[in-house]
């Protein structure tokens, strides 16, 4: 039972991450490889605020969100000067830099030792310690996230993002500003990733930089590629599939000596097959194809 609750909480956390990233990848058509950066900065910012200043979880989470949004703004300004492959590489660069800083700024982050004993969240006087409590707390924040993002998905802002994604030159010719629109999307995605980071930190009560590596960013991107982007259903399908598939493979009854490796291989093979069979993702409506974006 606890195992299932744990999986549900992780699914909730990843849904927050995936729905936010969907705005950039699915609506904006920009393949960002630094989403784990915002996830990590949110986790570290809220944790350090809670430990060093003693403020409670909700204000720490919101302040962490503000800090991360500011950081996303600073990353977005240079990164969004690029498109396609170059954008991917620039975000990859930021991912490496931030990881290195988190890993080596021992005075602030304790580097590779990580931060143990992160306080449990106290929300409106209740201290949350049980798995059910976390499931509800993360669930409530997930609901708020989804409501806000779904409104954005179908707002004129969402439509402008999709227009810019499909043809930036034509959309700009209709008066849509690429830099403003993409930057808003980037900041919003960063802000929501930070929420997920704060929740993750207080849920596992220990963070270290290895939770926020390039692998994590790639995982988040593959969640969207598998599930599908540009709509409401894709991220849900992707998260559930990508988190449950490795778990399901545990029950294959493989001999212990080879099990982890075989699981990894089946996992990888599934992704490859999916890309052949459904390049737009299981529930996606838009096929990510940044090579096709010709500039005149």
């Amino acid at each position, binding site marked *: 039972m606890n195992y299932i609750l744990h999986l549900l909480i992780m699914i909730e956390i990843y849904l927050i991450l995936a729905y936010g990233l969907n705005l950039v990848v699915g609506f904006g058509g920009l393949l960002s490889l630094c989403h784990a950066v915002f996830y990590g900065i949110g986790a570290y910012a809220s944790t350090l605020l809670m430990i060093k200043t003693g403020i409670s979880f909700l204000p720490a989470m919101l302040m962490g969100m503000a800090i991360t949004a500011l950081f996303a703004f600073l990353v977005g300004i240079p990164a969004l000067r690029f498109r396609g492959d170059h954008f991917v590489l620039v975000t990859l660069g930021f991912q490496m830099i931030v990881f290195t800083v988190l890993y080596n700024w021992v005075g602030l982050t304790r580097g590779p030792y990580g931060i143990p004993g992160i306080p449990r969240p106290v929300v409106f006087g209740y201290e949350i310690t049980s798995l059910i409590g976390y499931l509800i707390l993360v669930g409530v924040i997930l609901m708020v996230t989804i409501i806000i993002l779904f409104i954005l998905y179908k707002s004129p*802002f969402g439509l402008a993002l999709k227009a810019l994604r499909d043809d930036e030159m034509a959309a700009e010719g209709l008066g*849509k500003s690429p830099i403003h629109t993409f930057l808003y999307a980037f900041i919003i995605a960063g802000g929501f990733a930070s929420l997920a980071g704060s929740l993750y930190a207080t849920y596992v009560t220990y963070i270290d930089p290895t939770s926020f590596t390039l692998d994590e960013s790639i995982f988040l991107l593959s969640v969207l590629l598998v599930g599908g982007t540009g709509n409401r259903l894709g991220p849900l399908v992707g998260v559930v599939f990508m988190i449950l598939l490795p778990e399901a493979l545990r029950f294959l009854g493989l001999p212990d000596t080879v099990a982890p490796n075989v699981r990894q291989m089946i996992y990888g093979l599934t992704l490859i097959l999916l890309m052949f069979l459904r390049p737009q993702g299981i529930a996606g409506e838009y096929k990510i194809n940044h090579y096709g974006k010709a500039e005149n």
Partner: protein
Amino acid sequence: MEKLKIKNISKAINGLKIVDRVTASFLPGRITGLIGPNGAGKTTLFHIITGELRSDTGEINYRGEDITLLPPYRVARKGIGRLFQDVRVFENLTVSENVVSACYDHRVETPWFPFLRKKRWKALERDFKEKSDYYIDYVGLMEVKDVPASSLSYGQQKLLAIARLLAGGFSLLLLDEPTAGLNPVMIKKILNILKRIVAEDQGKTIVLVEHDMSVVTEVADWVYFMNEGRIAFFGRTDHVLGDKEVREIYLGL
């Protein structure tokens, strides 16, 4: 009253003069043709007007405002719309979404707008649905309204791009070869639409880059003839097309 005035515009790319000291003005309520051989600098001139390219010299003035240095999205917000040679519809959006997206202006396209002005958003959504239907009907794409733009034929995509420009409320339309690659029926359709646009709204200015001389003769009152980056001739259409030099350089007669 003159609407678009370009003065002394030059542009060199890799040392090659693509546009060379071009001065021209375009009047409202008219369709003005811009003709000339391939490589004469017509499309580059459009790029400079819309801000895709920055000119080396000169200035561009639209309705009394200097727009020379504005980025493309701000030129568009001043009311200058463009039909691209390669059409450029939003392929993953439906026909209807394509046109609706042109209706919204940038003040509405902020992430906070739907939260702060919920009622206004819903009202706009209704209005623009109607408005986009009107223009989809205007270009005759009503049957394919809910189809993704990628599944339209090339000609239909051109019609869609025109509907998008109309819905965007642009007062100056720069059309880069609107009839190229189309069959005669489709060409006729597009020409009728162009004539209807200026007939219904005398405030609209249309500039037309075109290689098909029968098209130019049919819709354009005035013609600029460009050659090697320069405006070689300007005058009434029949006049310019009747000129001996134009006939030699361009028409090969």
